[in-house]
């Protein structure tokens, strides 16, 4: 992934993407996450999925440095299985939360493993989480890569850079 991060250059925005359609997809992804709809959320991902929440900066090397989350499709599945047990105590009871996805920009194209071109989208977010521990505000920058698979929009890549990822953060067990 780092390779992709650092060397691949951003291609021009691929055709056939309606900005509103993209926004609606991001809003749906956010709603599924807010509502802890694990099945619906997991179904959004492609097989070559990458879900990344770096720590200590935006552009660390995820292979040689620790991240908060660095899940491939397999680990996403494991994460979902764990929380579905109802005994993933960091989310049992689950967080109440709502997030706002804002400043959505279509950034360009990225060549994907299957040789196609994914659409790269940037957005900012603020998520307001409520647990017995207290209320917590989360915020940062999200980079998405999306792709059409059999006519459906799928999520191939989601990188969430928390504004304060250089500091200690509380447990982050909801779907960010």
């Amino acid at each position: 992934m780092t390779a992709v991060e650092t060397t691949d250059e951003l291609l021009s925005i691929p055709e056939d993407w309606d900005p509103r359609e993209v926004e609606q997809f991001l809003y749906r992804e956010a709603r599924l996450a807010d509502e802890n709809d694990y099945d619906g959320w997991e179904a959004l991902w492609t097989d070559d999925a990458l879900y990344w929440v770096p720590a200590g900066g935006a552009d660390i090397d995820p292979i040689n440095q620790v991240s908060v989350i660095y899940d491939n499709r397999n680990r996403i599945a494991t994460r979902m299985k764990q929380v579905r047990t109802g005994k993933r105590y960091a989310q049992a009871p689950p967080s109440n939360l709502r997030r706002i996805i804002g400043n959505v920009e279509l950034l360009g194209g990225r060549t994907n493993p299957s040789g196609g071109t994914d659409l790269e989208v940037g957005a900012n977010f603020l998520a307001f989480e409520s647990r017995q521990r207290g209320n917590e505000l989360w915020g940062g920058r999200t980079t998405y890569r999306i792709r059409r698979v059999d006519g459906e929009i799928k999520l191939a890549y989601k990188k969430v850079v928390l504004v304060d990822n250089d500091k200690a953060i509380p447990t982050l067990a909801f779907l960010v």
Partner: protein
Amino acid sequence: MTAVLPSAGIDLDALIHRDKVHGSLYTDRSIFARELAKIWYTTWVFVGHESEVPEPNDYVRKRLGLQDVVMTRDKDGEVHLLLNRCAHRGNQVCDDVKGNSSSFRCPYHGWTYRNTGELLGYPYNQGYGGKNKLELGMGTVPRVASYAGFVFGSFADQGPSLVEHLGAAAGEIDRLVGLSPEGKVELSAGWLQHKTRANWKLLAENETDGYHPQFVHGSIFGVTGSPIGALYSDSSTAVTRNLGGGHSENDLRPEFRKFAEPMRWFGTTPERVPDYVAAMNEAHGADAERLMIEGAPHVMIFPNLFIAEIQVFNIQPVAVGECLQYSTAVQLAGAAELNKRMISQSIGSVGPAGMLLADDTEMYERNQRGVETLTPEWLDVRRGLHREQTDEAGFTIGTATDETGMRGFWSHYKSLMEA
């Protein structure tokens, strides 16, 4: 500038019994203030690892208790712990989280310090009668020592040496180092920082609590079919050992010896990591197989270093009801086949989103809320007391699920707090 030491008002005999400890130990501010003075600012505390400052003049910001500390390596390679405060008027000297520099400059009036803390210069020096007139360096942690690259600091000018402090726990670090064909551990993968709204002792006690994994981590053990759960069951032959000095371990070797399968401890087989196995045989000869069968230690080193097989934790207090967990992946020199996987596994397990540690941390925070409750006033630590034994080395041991480690923690804690 810690609060005045509350010498009166704390009767530790009344609060710490052999089989239970009082809830106020986790909620009373005056006890926390005393812990800062008697433990965090006295005994040896883990701060970081030499591999974080590999080159001369490298530095990295660290925390020791409530202190903002800069760990530096000077030009001659010696490691120092500087308090990040200017000797002139107290400004913060170093901003960056890490870097390489032989000196630091305070932005307020431009005083400069060597990375040993020594005052280098001050602008307009006539205001002090010229150059080199001031004996004002940055504060330093008076005693700094390391073991296998693990750097510890003590604010006490004298006292037990680090090796004396580590005692039998040093052997556990040796076990970890032994897993490197080059005999070298590195903590070079960065640190996750996990804010935890709980008293630090709840973490220290939990680290070698073999009673909780089946319950707290059942969700992940179940879905991954992990064999770890079984190591912490009634039928496990693993041992909980009080290593003295407040240190304790869950010794899983009895279980791994039963299987006698090299690399089982890491969930793999020699076939899958041939270069590593070859290098280990090369390095350790006949002893290599034993090492690869027995695997890595699971040891809590008082008060704040926890080595959990392939992960290392650094626990630091913030307030009576809050602390920080720093965690990273072990990197073994000469074990390329293992290192990336250790990072990947650690990311999955530890830190704010870890599939293990997020649940432990939920327990810590639930406990903190619980200990603020009026009754029962006590936390129980009697588990396994009646079946405790002494091993051949003279250490008190319990079964895999016994609270032997906690009892060791508390007796040492009490001795320090009463000192």
